[in-house]
């Protein structure tokens, strides 16, 4: 029922477009689309609240209703999104998973294989952790501020940090969640700083939370005596790096992430690519590199 010369429509469904990371991802996708206008049509949809899984499911249902050909999705929840993605696949839509990996167990249970295109978060976090460890003494106190506990990438980053800290023999005194947000991370950081006067470093699972940690240090009058590391390399993080307020961050190339996913989907549509995972690059960003 489709004309063969019809351009396919690809829907990019991200988490909150109010979040800088996904905003960058969206812009990257739009830039990619501008260069390949004759190859496909693009639709970008985000949800209001990063944790609002229901709304994201509704988004998938909506684009299914609109008859898109492919869905590239950064799931807000690695389990809850599986059934609807499976439904989309059953309806003949190509589905590609980016950013946050869908849960393997649920995928298996649902009998679905959805290719994941994205970075190895654990590796990225470990890189940052190792860079930090070189500046610390063995046995120094460090703390981790995690992302949302139900996000796969959050868990991976935490594990990456832990891997590096363990390898270097650091003392992880606490690991608490900051739910990805500056506002939530800041009081957690304050408590860590005040409760552990000898704390040497705070490892944050994203840059927004690193901003909260930096503010907490200022609130406590501790200036730059504690290292802060972040993840994502948002614009603000680059300034923080320059001013030496954070030690390093990790760039997983959000702008390219979506393009990778879209290209993967297009290839699958053409039957050129199989539904296998594809790893995208992660890079450590430090002040010297800017």
């Amino acid at each position, binding site marked *: 029922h489709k004309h063969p010369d019809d351009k396919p429509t690809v829907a990019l469904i991200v988490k909150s477009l109010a979040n800088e990371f996904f905003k960058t991802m969206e812009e990257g996708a739009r830039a990619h689309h501008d260069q390949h206008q004759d190859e496909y049509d693009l639709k970008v949809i985000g949800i*209001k609240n990063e944790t609002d899984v229901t709304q994201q499911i*509704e988004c998938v249902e909506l684009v299914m*209703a609109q*008859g898109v050909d492919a869905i590239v999705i950064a799931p807000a929840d690695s389990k809850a999104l599986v059934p609807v993605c499976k439904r989309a696949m059953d309806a003949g839509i190509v589905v590609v998973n980016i950013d946050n990996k869908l849960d393997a*167990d649920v995928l298996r249970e649902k009998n679905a294989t959805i290719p994941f295109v994205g970075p190895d978060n654990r590796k990225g976090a470990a890189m940052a952790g190792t860079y930090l460890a070189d500046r610390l003494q063995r046995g120094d106190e460090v703390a981790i501020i995690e992302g*949302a506990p*139900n996000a796969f990438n959050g868990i991976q980053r935490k594990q990456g940090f832990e891997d590096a800290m363990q390898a270097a023999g650091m003392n992880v005194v606490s690991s608490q969640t900051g739910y990805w947000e500056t506002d939530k991370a800041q009081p957690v950081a304050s408590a860590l700083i005040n409760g552990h006067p000898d704390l040497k470093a705070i490892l944050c699972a994203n840059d927004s939370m690193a901003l909260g940690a930096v503010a907490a240090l200022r609130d406590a009058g501790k200036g730059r005596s504690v290292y802060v590391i972040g993840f994502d390399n948002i614009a603000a993080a680059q300034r923080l790096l320059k001013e030496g307020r954070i030690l390093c961050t990790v760039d997983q190339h959000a702008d390219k992430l979506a393009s990778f996913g879209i290209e993967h989907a297009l290839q699958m549509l053409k039957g050129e690519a199989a539904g296998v995972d594809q790893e995208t690059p992660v890079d450590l960003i430090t002040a010297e590199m800017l």
Partner: protein
Amino acid sequence: MAGDYLGMVVALLALVIVFSLSAKNFFTATTFRTIANQIPDTTIVAVGMTFVLIIAGIDLSVSSVLALAGAVLGIVLVNWGWPLPLAIVVCLVVGLVCGAVNGLVVVRWRLPSFIVTLGMLEAARGAAYRVTQSRTIYVGGPLEAITDTTILGLSLPLIGAILIVVVGQLVLSRTVFGRYLIAIGTNEEAVRLSGIDPRPYKVAVFLLCSSLAAVAAVIRAARMSSANPNAAIGFELEVIAAVVIGGTSLMGGRGSVVRSFFGVLIIAVLGAGLAQIGAQEHTKRLISGCVIVLAVILDQYRRRVRNA
């Protein structure tokens, strides 16, 4: 009676027409099917909220109670391996308990329900994180049967929601219970002086609202095949907005369940339409903010015209 709903039907049709003209593929069966699948849980909670607002109360805790009840449902099904009907009962009991706490604290210490349910908003969310260790619980199969069952093309949840709306409206406008609620919302002191103890009625309303939130939790979990402790954050304001768009007064004493249902429909169509025309996040926010206020302004005019 019919005139009561006319304004809302017109508003709804206007929205559908605008989006049908501006968004490709909006006016399709799939879109309406999607919307029909999405509204049952909001509708059910909106019925409960209508009752709460009518007694001049407010229930901010519905979102957290929903999350907690859903989380418990997930735990009972997956970790304890109980059968679905029993798990649903446990889930409803969770709703009942939360409602009972809200209601009893409100009447026992004569506290504003805003603050009591704000406390519950925090506490129930905390409990939801506690029972799930902050993780989403995938349930899958058994639960999905609920949403997959259809009768005459309508899904079980939708039928349930419509039934709850109809019964709710009848209870409100035709029963002694309903009239007492309106009376309590209008002038609680006068009700007390009429020799009617308003307290059991108030407790009943909070019980009802939280239980309906638990019912919505089952539906939502079924739709998502999973229970998420982060579910429905901010949902309470969305529900209140829908109910108020439906003309229920925040000051109590006035409201209609059917009109709340239209409020839910308006918000759902607006959300779906804005998403489908590809509006950006900030535009969506701006527009939905304005629509909420406009809808209430229109309702004011309608009421004034009718009274004159």
